[in-house]
Each structure stands twice: as C-alpha cells, then as structure tokens.
C-alpha cells in the first residue's frame, strides 16, 4: 500500500464506480459502432453519390432520391411492403388462436405443440422452396386443387395479381408458429387466482378471455407485434427464393429492390441502392421509435 503511487491509486479509487461500467461496455459498444452505427452514416453518405462500387464516386446531391420518387418500381415495392405489413400482422391473432387451442392438458400435447412449432425451425429458404413447388403449375398441389375446383389453372407466382399474396401466405406459416410460441409461454404465466375470481363473478367464454386473459398476455402481444412488423419490413429471403421479384418486378419489396440495384448481377448502382436503404431505414425508424417510446413509458410507470 505504501509503495503504490498515491496519485494513480487515488484517481482509480475515486472513479472506479464510474469507470468500470464503461470498460465493460467498451467492447460491445465498439463493435456496435463499427458494424452498425458507422455503416448507417456511410450508407447515407453513399446515397448522395453515383457509384458502381469500383470506380470513383461522383457527388450528385439528391438526384438518387429525385429519381426514386419518380420510379415505378419503387412504388411497386413500397405498396408490396405495406401489403406485407398489414397481412403479416394476421400472424398475431392466428398465433394466439393456435396457442389457445393447444393450451390444454391432453396426452401427447407436447407432440402437437412441436408439430405446430416445426415451420419456425425450418429455414426461410426451405419454406420458400416448399411453397414454390406447392404453387408450381402442372404438378403443384395447390394448382392441382384450383384446377379441380375451377377448371382453369392459376400459376400464382407468375401472376402479378396473386404473386405477393402467395409469398405472404408462405411467410405467415412460420410466423404464426413464432407468435404461437410467444403466446404459449405467456399463457403459462396466467395468474390462476384472477381467472378463478373472474369465474366466481360469472365471467365465462369470450368475456373471460377478453377481460381477464388477454390483458395478462399484453407483454406477449407486444413482442409478437414488434417481431412481426420488423419481419414484414425486412422480408427478403422468401421473395428472393420464390420469385426473385418477378414476374416483371411485381413482387419486389424494398429490401429486395435495394439488393437488386446495389448488389445483384445486373445492379452495382451503389448510390441508388443506398438511397432505397435509407428510405427503408426511415420507415423502420417510425416503428422503432414508437416501440421505444412505449417501452420507456411502461418502464417509467412500473
């Protein structure tokens, strides 16, 4: 003790409590800075340039954005993204319904639960392939069914009227399983005393569910909505595997369009791709901010 320099040990002692959290945070924060925060600003910077990824960047101001707002393909992608967002949210009530159905004690219920959970375990690429075959004209199960019902064959993935819906249905399959799992864990934590009390007061059936069960599932509902909204906005794998944005670009979504423009075989317009990414980022920011505000206000109330 006596031979340590008093100045340094004094400084460390005085500030230990304030400094050590910073040291613990530093590795994670550094990675986050390099791999998340800096690229965001880099993307914004690139979106003001005309750049093929190889040569020199040319600064063109907001020309990429100006072009984007008069680009039909951009509006098609945006509309499809909205469709995704709205229809994908069906996974939340559907997942809840399945969870309620499975939340009973019957022999072998674990097997049924895992069967329902199964689609979430398979990779999105495999889901996409399965549904592509399902819809395939000439030999697909679905097109055979439609043919036997209506007499005409519909190639879902080649028809601009149905293609996006077809892909969303494929996406709903694993997403419902995900929401179901969230609700199943939520249902495990239901307070039996409250249910009992409700029963005593004469609540049953739907009213019991709506007034007693659902409020207790709010945390699960919140998480389910968050992951579903984010999942809808970043939908990419299914579009890429099932149609590659076709037929003639009618099933594109923003993230796929960004990939096509910036990174695909026919693309390498880095600036334009970055501009699409920035727009997608702004749309996501709206939702992320909403969620954050909600979470913070809940924490404050708690």
């Amino acid at each position, binding site marked *: 003790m006596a031979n340590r320099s008093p100045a340094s040990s004094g400084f460390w002692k005085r500030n230990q409590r304030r400094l050590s959290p910073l040291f613990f945070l530093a590795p994670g924060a550094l990675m986050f800075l390099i791999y998340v925060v800096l690229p965001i600003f880099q993307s914004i910077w690139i979106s003001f340039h005309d750049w093929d990824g*190889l040569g020199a960047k040319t600064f063109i101001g907001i020309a990429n954005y100006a072009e984007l707002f008069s680009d039909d393909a951009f509006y098609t992608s945006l509309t499809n993204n909205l469709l995704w967002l709205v229809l994908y949210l069906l996974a939340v009530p559907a997942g809840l319904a399945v969870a309620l159905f499975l939340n009973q004690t019957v022999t072998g219920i674990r097997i049924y639960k895992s069967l329902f959970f199964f689609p979430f375990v398979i990779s999105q690429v495999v889901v996409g392939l399965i549904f592509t075959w399902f819809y395939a004209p000439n030999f697909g199960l679905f097109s055979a069914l439609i043919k036997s019902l209506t007499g005409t*064959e519909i190639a879902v993935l080649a028809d601009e009227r149905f293609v996006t819906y077809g892909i969303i249905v494929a996406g709903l399959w694993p997403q419902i399983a995900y929401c179901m799992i969230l609700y199943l864990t939520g249902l495990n934590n239901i307070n039996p005393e409250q249910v009992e009390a409700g029963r005593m007061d004469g609540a049953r059936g739907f009213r019991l569910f709506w007034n007693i069960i659902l409020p207790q599932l709010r945390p699960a509902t919140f998480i389910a909505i968050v992951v579903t909204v984010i999942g809808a906005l970043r939908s990419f794998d299914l579009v890429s595997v099932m149609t590659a944005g076709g037929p003639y670009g009618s099933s594109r979504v923003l993230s796929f369009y960004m990939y096509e423009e910036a990174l695909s075989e026919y693309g390498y317009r880095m600036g334009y791709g970055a501009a699409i990414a920035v727009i997608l980022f702004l749309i996501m920011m709206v939702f992320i901010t909403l969620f954050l505000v909600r979470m913070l206000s809940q924490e404050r109330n708690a």
Partner: protein
Amino acid sequence: MTILKTFGAFALGSALMGSAALAGEIVLNSDHSDPAPKKAMEELIADFQAKNPGITVKWNNFDHEGYKSAIRNFLTADAPDVAAWYAGNRMEPFVKAGLFEDVSDVWAANGLDDQLKSASASMTIDGKKWGVPYTYYQWGIYYRADIFKEQGIEPPKTWAELLAACEKLKAAGITPFAIGTKALWPTGGWFDYLDLRVNGYEFHMDLTSGKVPYTDPKVKAVFEKWGELVKPGYFLENHAALDWQDAIPQLVQGKAAMYLMGNFAVATMKDGGLKEDQIGFMQFPEITAGIPMAEEAPTDTFHIPSGAKNKEDAKKFLAYLASPEAQAKMNATLGQLPVNNKAAKPTDKFLDAGFTMLSNAYALAQFYDRDAPADMAKAGMEGFQEFMVKPDKVDDILAKLEKVRARVYK
C-alpha cells in the same frame, strides 16, 4: 474515418501476404464448377504445366453466382494472375476501371488477330484487346424432329413458314414454343433474334449501345412480329413461373415442339430422355428479306487483372489457351465450339451444324445481357417478360425502357 482506414490497410496487408505467389506460379480464378467445364479446366492446366515445366498453376474454382460478385472483390483487393470473364459489354466496367491488363501484345505475337478473328470485335475496347476468348456456342431453334415429321412440317426458312408451322402444331394440341422466363434471360434470346432478323445487326448494336431510342418505330416493329407469336398463344402458358430447365419436360413429353436456346440445352434434353435423332437444329428463320443473317454466340474469355503479380507467365498461359490444340481439346470436353478457326472441327451433330452456321454468319452478337449494360439489360428483359404476358401493353413497356435508356447511357 481513421479507424476505417487503419482497418482497411490491415485487411489489405494480410490479403497481400496471404497470396504472395511463388516465382513461376500463376493464380487462376474461374467459375468452372459444373462437371464438364471442371474437367476441361483440369486438362487444360495439366497440359499447360507439361508444356511449361517451370510454371505451376494454382486454380481457385468458384461457383457461378458467387463468382459474379467475388470478381469485383478480388480484382480490387487480391488480384489473381488470370481470371475468367465474358466478352463484350460485360468486361467494359472492369476495363474502364483499369482492372484488366491490355493484352494486345499477346494477340500480335501469336497471330491471334487472324486466328480468333470472329471474336476480335467483342474483345476490343478503345482499339486494344483485353483478354483471350476460348469458347463459344451457337443459339438457334431446337425442335422435335419426330413431331415435325408426324405433322408433316418442314423446318421453316421464313417467317411465314414459321407462322404456318406454329398454326399447324397448335391445331394438333401442341404448344409450338417451349420457354421459361422466370430467370428473365431466355426472353433476351428472343428479342435479339427478332431484332437481328427484322432490323439487322447494325441496328441491334446501335440499340444495345444506346444510340437508338426504344420508342423508335423499328423497335416497335420487332414487338409486332413477336406479338404474332404471343397473341395466338404459341408460347408455353405460365412461362413466367418456369426456369428454362422446367420447360424441357414439355418438350420431352411432346407437349411443345420447339425451343429457342443455346446449345447447352441439348445435354439437358438428352438427360430428359430424348434421343439424338429426335432433336433437330435450325437457324432462326429470315424475317425481313435481304438482311444478312447475324447470329447469337456468347463468348467466354480469360483476362489478366492489372493487379496480377506474375504477368509474364500469365501471358504465356493466355497464349497457350488461344492455341488451336488447346482450344480443340478443351471444347471437345466442354461440348462447345473453339473460337480459334485453325482448331479441329467438332464431331458432334449439333456443334457441327453450329460451326457451319457461325462460320457463315454475317456478324456475332454476344447476347442481350452482355451487349447492353447491366442495368439496361435487367430493365429490358423485365419488359420483354411483361410483353410476353401482356402484349397489349407494348407502348407502356417501350416508354418505360426509353426512360431507363435515357438514364443508363449518359
């Protein structure tokens, strides 16, 4: 920013150390991952090493799709000594960015201007040669010879005969043309051939290099001819849901009779169960009388990146690759045509027909997605696919393409 630079320098430094080649070694990157091309490359490398005892070739084989993005990385960061790529406009971005080495001296020293004459134009940018072509293959209409015979159809030589043949097939319950447009590029073959036959090679090249607007009446005329096949339903239904291989079973089962494709499709047709004498090959028929017949012949090439470390030996490799013996042997394995006109002729029936056709061709086009710049090609082929589904929207489609043209060729 300094952090980024330090990181970049570090990454570059370690990459350079990793690839520091030995003297007498050349690093070769290519995408010959399918069985036949892989075998052809193995033979080529073994023969080259036997002829040049001091040199060893280190070969990195990539898969097709991965290669297209990998090449952009390795050309700038960690250049090999030889890299595979394609002729025409496809190599232009790399040439313009200074990433490919001028190899005009290899051409001059080995008499390649004469021997590789047919591909000379598509290897030249700014009057210099930027690589060596080693293989190409013909496009044309492959048809079911037995079905034609049954229906009493002679292979059509003119547009009127083609339409008559289609009508006859359709009446017999057979779809005239198989096609799968999911991957878009098969539509490019149709547009190229129709434009080459309606307006000729010069106009087609002017169009793909951006000198003519897509709203030009001559372009509209191409789509009118195309419409004569689309509107009566002469193409496979639901083609937008199919890949090109998915349309082959229709041909094999006799539900479709013709397929405009590259010669690589023959192998798939045979795998599907067709015998050689069931398949016929014909040149795309004449449309506008008197226009010299140009053909489609996509060419594959090798280049020396400007960042190569062993350019001297790499040039020896290119010279060997260009030689008649090397090209004859390699293409016999590939099942394609040698570019070198001194190389031994192929014995295969379809290749022989292709060889004769291409030797007499007025000029060679590379393919829509190699002749036109990438973003134009993408928009163009999307428009062609839309036209094949909704032929009445032709004016909207052409207006859209013209908008893209105005942006791409500034």
